[in-house]
């Protein structure tokens, strides 16, 4: 998956200038350090994992402000979602009518993005369920997985 393809999932056509360093993408302001083979430069936007792109926490917020489809959840569902659960229709408080298969960013009451998923049925009567693809709890799981090694 390319970086552009990742953004297109959310309906974002805006081009973002990125530099790939190992398995991560960065927005680089100063290229003079690149010759010394750093593992991180400036602003981290995303990582490649299992052939897919997962965004950084801050870039996720950038994506959520531009994404075509969103759903908002309450406090309890917020907690379950960042623990890696899918969202049931009863836990979704508001949304802007995504169709089945759409990528949907998940927002909390403060409109902070918690991650994203794929909309699935039943969509009749506006009822929406969302299969989790990525959530910000991934940061902890990533670090803990590493610690066990």
């Amino acid at each position, binding site marked *: 998956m390319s970086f552009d393809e990742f953004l297109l999932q959310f309906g974002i056509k805006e081009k973002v200038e990125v530099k790939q360093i190992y398995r991560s993408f960065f927005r680089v302001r100063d290229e003079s350090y690149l010759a010394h083979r750093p593992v991180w430069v*400036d602003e981290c936007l995303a990582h490649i994992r299992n052939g897919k792109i997962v965004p950084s926490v801050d870039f996720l917020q950038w994506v959520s402000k531009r994404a075509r489809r969103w759903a908002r959840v309450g406090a309890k569902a917020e907690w379950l979602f960042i623990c890696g659960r899918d969202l049931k229709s009863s836990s979704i408080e508001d949304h802007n009518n995504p169709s089945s298969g759409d990528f949907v960013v998940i927002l909390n009451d403060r409109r902070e993005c918690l991650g994203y998923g794929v909309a699935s049925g039943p969509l009749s009567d506006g009822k929406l369920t969302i299969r989790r693809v990525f959530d910000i709890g991934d940061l902890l799981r990533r670090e803990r997985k590493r610690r066990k090694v």
Partner: protein
Amino acid sequence: MASAGREFFQERYEQLGGEVASVQITQSIRVNTLKTTCKELISRLSSKGVVLEREPLAKNAYRVVSSPFSLGAITEYLLGLYALQEVAAQIPVEVLAPRQGELVLDCCAAPGGKSSQIAQLMKNKGRLVCYELKPHRLKSLLVNLERMGVKNAVVFRADVSRVRLLNKEFDKVLVDAPCSGNYVLEKGWFEKRRLEGILRNAQIQRKILSSAVSVARQGGVIVYSTCSLEPEENELVIDWAIRNLPVKVVLANVKGASPGVVDVFGARLHSDVSKCARLWPHKTKTQGFFIAKLVKK
């Protein structure tokens, strides 16, 4: 004579004017002012039942009085609105006082608490260069930089001695050196540590400090810190630096801290060592820490 065990270390600390005390350190957070304000975060966390109290030892530090849940897994933490960082560990960067637009080096950067604090004080402006040698510690550093929204850092997985290859002169350098730790942080610390290990650390610490000084600009500030209470890793390193490196010690000026010890087990150190700050757990109710502020001549 045994060179390990509780009695051995207790006797050493008493000779230095300290003691071994049962100190329960409370969890502290550092508000990430790159993403929020203290007022906003306190109000947000208190609405969830978290009780915080201002921690006078550091600027953006709050002591966690009580919390109905773990503060290391909630949305606010994952969004990087705060870091879990013991208050004593927040002091070295405050002593370094990095500013916007400066070129700053963090010599032993993982797990990234102090690196993100440096970026925070720099308001993400200027350049922060981080070195971390140990691959297994690098992941924590990168995750922390990402979570805290650090956007002015460049990170190298390498020994800090390679910093010379960058051909830069740094305004500020933090040497938070790898050390033997202290008994407050680690259960069974007295049984795990021996004097030989401490002396080995001291050799590495001198090497790192030497690299740090060599790339600081003239008049640049170098802060050397450890979370060790052992003089071999602290005062003796600074005494060696005064005598062998182009640096002078300036007053670290840390609230509640004791001065660096100049009489160490019968040896008289350079009087400027007393300008360093030593945090004895029984006095500050924090973990043990040592902080020295040096200026390159």
